[in-house]
């Protein structure tokens, strides 16, 4: 990972690094340290009264049944989003890779929801599934199915999962398609000579060869579903009804910004931080391995 030939320079490299390091130190390390420090404090919202309490915030967070139920919500939500977003992306990618005419056009038409902000995606889905305004909300109620995501927790969860998955499919599609296109054609053709049907060919040959892509996508989708769906939740359900859609990152926001429990919220952030670090480590190891393959 290092090059042999390099330039000489005593001060130049430091000079080149200065802008980025300055920004990173001022706007990342200093605030991050403050957040970790905050997780060990009990403090009123205005910061007028502070008490150092070691890990009491962590104990309280981890023994809180609502925190554990938020873990459950997050897992269910993430699993639903990932399953939906990855399986449909894989299906579409396989179809687009099947030598179909106009695959490029399809690619463009499938890709663009990626560019939509999560909060805006929430607004779009709200407009479709609003119980009295939305076209589907009305239809479901007309069919007597009692659709009201403001009352039924599972409906709210389903809605944010759909909106999030909708926004995510394009991303996964691009990676699956790239993965499929990197599989040498000879491999699949050899299999069809052996008389394997398209489905068998996919299951026995293509899917295993695709597993690095799938694994990579799994990791980044987990991170995405954990953290970047905040905008969807905030614009659609605000965590309700009950705490049905209160994911971990949303709880950090609610406890810190709405309930003003800064210590508890910081402790939750630190816990999440550890989760990301672990996931990133997994991902990083995987990248290193791939680099060695090349």
């Amino acid at each position: 990972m290092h090059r042999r030939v390099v330039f000489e320079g005593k001060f130049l490299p430091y000079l080149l690094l200065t802008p980025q390091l300055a920004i990173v130190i001022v706007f990342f390390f200093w605030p991050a340290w403050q957040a970790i420090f905050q997780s060990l404090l009990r403090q009123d919202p205005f910061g007028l009264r502070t008490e150092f309490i070691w890990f009491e915030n962590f104990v309280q967070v981890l023994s809180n049944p609502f925190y554990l139920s938020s873990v459950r919500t997050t897992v269910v939500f993430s699993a639903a989003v990932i399953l939906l977003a990855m399986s449909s992306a894989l299906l579409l990618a396989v179809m687009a890779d099947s030598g179909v005419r106009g695959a490029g056009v399809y690619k463009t038409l499938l890709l663009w929801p990626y560019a939509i902000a999560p909060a805006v995606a929430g607004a779009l889905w709200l407009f479709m599934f609003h119980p009295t305004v939305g076209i589907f909300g009305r239809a479901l109620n007309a069919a007597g199915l009692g659709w009201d995501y403001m009352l039924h927790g599972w409906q709210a969860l389903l809605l944010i999962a759909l909106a999030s998955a909708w926004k995510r499919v394009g991303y996964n599609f691009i990676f699956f398609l790239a993965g499929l296109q990197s599989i040498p054609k000879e491999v699949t053709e050899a299999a069809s000579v052996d008389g394997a049907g398209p489905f068998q060919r996919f299951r026995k040959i293509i899917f295993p060869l695709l597993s690095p892509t799938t694994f990579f996508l799994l990791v980044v989708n987990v991170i995405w579903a954990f953290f970047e769906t905040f905008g969807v939740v905030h614009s659609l359900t605000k965590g309700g009804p009950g705490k049905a859609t209160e994911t971990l990152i949303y709880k950090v926001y609610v406890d810190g910004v709405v309930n003003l429990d800064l210590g508890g919220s910081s402790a939750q952030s630190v816990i999440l931080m550890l989760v990301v670090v672990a996931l990133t480590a997994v991902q990083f190891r995987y990248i290193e391995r791939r680099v060695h393959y090349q």
Partner: protein
Amino acid sequence: MTTRTKFFVGFVCFAVVAAAFASTPDVKAAQPTAPALVAQAGRVQVDFWHGLGRPLGGILEDIAAEFNASQTRYHVNATFKGSYPETMVAAIAAFRAGNAPHIVQMFEVGTATMMAAKGAVKPVHELMKEAGVPFDPSIYLPAIRGYYSTTDGRMVAMPFNSSTAVLWYNRDAFRKAGLDPAKPPKTWAETRAAAQRIRSTNAAACGFTFAWPTWTQFEQFSAIHDTPLATKANGFEGLDAEMATNSPLHVRHTQALLDMMKEGSFKYGGRDSAADALFPSGECAMIHASSGLRARVLRDAKFDWGVAYLPYYDDVKGAPKNSIIGGAAFWVMTSPRRTAEEYRAVAEFFKFIGRPEVVARWHMESGFLPITYPGITLVNALGYYAANPGADIPYKQLTRSLPSRNSKGLRLGNMPEIRVVLQEEMELVFQGQKSAKAAMDAGVRRANEILRRFEKVHTGQ
């Protein structure tokens, strides 16, 4: 090479568009600010963050503009900062960064949090005294004054947009159901009978609903029935107050709502203001909602409607008492570099918004309560109540008795969080997951934990 060319063409296009955007004389943005800047020169600037969306926020900003036009020394910059909780958070974050606005509008359930923040907040009585601006708290209605005063009666925040909960009912639906539109239900028994009748005659798709579940069905309900919501006079007498919402009366009421839901006479409309829409659309024939709903009902309801007092259980001793307020008040925040002249500017602004004509105008345009006696007198003199039957119901309900220990208001820490807890427990009952008693007990337990956390943060124990 072609890639590079394409890229540079693309980049240049971007740059051009960006430049065009940046240099477009932004008519809307420039017009209000540019002349204002000139006029502002030399004036004492007051930052005022509020949490009122359209259309109410517009009226409020008009009032600030009027104040600015009424004199030449001070200038109030009224800025919408999002919902009340968002405004609160922004103000707190700004305070911590040493950059608090001069005035922040805070919803009534944030009162305990603000009061506990000694040093961050300048009490209004102190502000007025130091600035030498004459100020008479006794012109404010007792239920409003009490909510924002210390136990020894000194006003801490400046009331402005206060509301209370009332019954809105659809007279057309009442007629269709064979009910007397001149006689809205007074008690809960009558409410239920009317709702059943509306459903059985199909005069409306839903008989009864309520908005702001905790506010209307716990806070107002407890005050009207002279029943404590929490011990220690609802928290006025100490941070060690405990919830009392699992009393037999509260359990009975929750059970009654569940029964009504099961028989189809009541529909749960969701949290906070979500149910508001069910009334003007004609879906629900009765709703317990804020008196502030008036502007919207006037605009949207395509039917004959009326306003009435909230119902009560007539077998409860002491009922009905006065209701309590909701809405928000203005708080003065401190900041390291704040000058006496700036406080003076705030005091002058407060004096301005306490004028009867401002109070009356705000009341008539927004539907919030007339908060002072001179204001009510003026509104009456203008003939507003004669022309708008029912518009006086909210303040009459609020003043129908002198506030008792249980109907003075609330002073509970982290009240927004407690509201959510009680809503959640109520929802669990409606979803059939818990009995009324179990849910109320759980609500008390959870809310007490929240109260203890607040106590710990503010007293260290």
